[in-house]
């Protein structure tokens, strides 16, 4: 299924103020892969996501989804395939009921209202908040908002899910629920996060970014245990892999 492939070829990006945020990144992500993108604050994760989504366009290099290059022209088609869940659900849930929010995408693609309804109910059911469909977003808890934001992307039936800090600001139980949910998806997944334990559990592959460049790209279980690499990139070995704080023994 080559059209599920996501490819970044030698990406460069400068902000208008001259800040060189992305310097020559290349990688390719295949169908069904689950990839974590990690790095310190300001390393360039968010910029990279914006480039992948076609919100920003690279100064040099290209992003391809399947065999199609991301350009202004191909955006409508690209965006049906790539779904992005924002870090702050309040940015993503801009309508006044959960239903309308989840329906926003399908309606923009001019599906008939029957199909829209089918998709919305299906997406809400998958994330387990069907009962909240007529609620206003500001009445939801943090975990429910996150689920609604994910549903609002699922209703567009994307092939690839891109998530920016999906577990940020969630209590432990809600975090666990979101992780279970994400794990159940068959989509190709790209996740950025500082929650390295989540990355360790969820992603088979990890890309480490440092100062706009790829510092490492490989199997998660090998990268995240590399204390030297992690330290150099402003990160830390996941807590689950560190010494037990009580007895000092390695897990």
């Amino acid at each position, binding site marked *: 299924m080559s059209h599920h492939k996501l490819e970044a070829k030698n990406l460069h990006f400068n902000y208008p103020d001259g800040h060189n945020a992305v310097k020559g990144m290349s990688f390719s992500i295949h169908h069904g892969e689950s990839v974590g993108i990690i790095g310190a604050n300001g390393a360039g994760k968010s910029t990279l996501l914006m480039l992948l989504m076609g*919100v920003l366009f690279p100064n040099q290099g290209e992003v391809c989804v399947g065999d199609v290059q991301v350009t202004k022209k191909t955006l*409508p088609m690209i965006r049906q395939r790539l779904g992005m869940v924002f870090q702050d659900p309040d940015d993503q849930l801009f309508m*006044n009921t959960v239903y309308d929010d989840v329906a926003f995408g399908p309606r*923009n693609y001019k599906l008939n209202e029957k199909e829209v309804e089918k998709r919305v109910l299906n997406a809400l059911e998958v994330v387990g908040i069907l009962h909240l469909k007529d609620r206003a977003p500001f009445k939801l808890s943090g975990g429910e908002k996150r689920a609604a934001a994910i549903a609002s*992307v699922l209703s567009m039936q994307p092939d690839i899910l891109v998530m920016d800090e999906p577990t940020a600001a969630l209590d432990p139980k809600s975090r666990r629920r979101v992780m279970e949910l994400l794990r159940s998806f068959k989509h190709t997944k790209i996740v950025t996060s500082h929650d390295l334990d989540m990355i360790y559990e969820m992603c088979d592959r990890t890309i480490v970014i440092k100062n706009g460049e790829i510092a490492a790209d490989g199997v998660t279980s090998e990268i995240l245990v590399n204390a030297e690499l992690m330290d150099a990139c402003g990160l830390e070995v996941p807590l689950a892999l560190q010494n037990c704080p009580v007895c000092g023994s390695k897990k």
Partner: protein
Amino acid sequence: MANIADSIYNMRLLDDLARQETLIHKLHPLVKLLTTVSYLTVVVSFGRYEVAGLLPLFFYPVMVLALAELPLKPILLRILLVSPFIIGIGILNPVFDQQTFELAGKEFSRGWVTFLSILLKSGLTVTAALLLIATTGMDRLAGALRILKVPRIFVLQLLLTYRYISVLMEEVARTLRAYSLRAPKQKGVHRSAWGSLAGQLLLRTFDRAQRIYEAMCLRGFAGEYHSGEINKISGWDWAYLGGWVAFFVLARMYNIPLLIGSLLTGVIR
């Protein structure tokens, strides 16, 4: 709108009330909007000296309140909080209108009648507007606006404003809390921080707008806003509208209380 918590609470309360499913709530939003507008027009069309004639119009809010199972207290509270502007302007009526009339053997200034008339109208109009939103909700009201051919851009923008009031109010509340914790004994924000405090909030608002715009684009937004279908107006909806409008017109044409009163006092005599 003095207090952040109160304002947010008030909006949430009205939103909750609007999500009930009573007879009134199930009515078509456009019908409720039209009924409200005709009610307001009739109330406002009464002259300055008419008080008795206004009274039958109490039936509308009372009936809707009861049928929609709305709590009386928060609505009454709102009416009491009615803009001091009205009372400020109205209270001068007795001063400027010194003509007197007799009631129950006592002399009153006509100004009091006009003042009372203004107060009654204010109470009725405020209640009617609150009842509209408390039985319809912002999203369905937006649907009614779309049927009335209000341009999409305006409706979408209105909905966005409504949606983000609570988000931004909480943001302002956090900022003010942080400010006041480090600036005890200050009543408001000091002049030296006017620009930076409000300006920072504003810049964050711009950034948020940017992110929202991105979120919209990523889900296929291209300047057009598509709302869902809204149910057709049923016969029952038309009957509701027609019934009330007929009553309003009747109440406007005949001074019903006076008729009742005359009948009664006539019989006693």
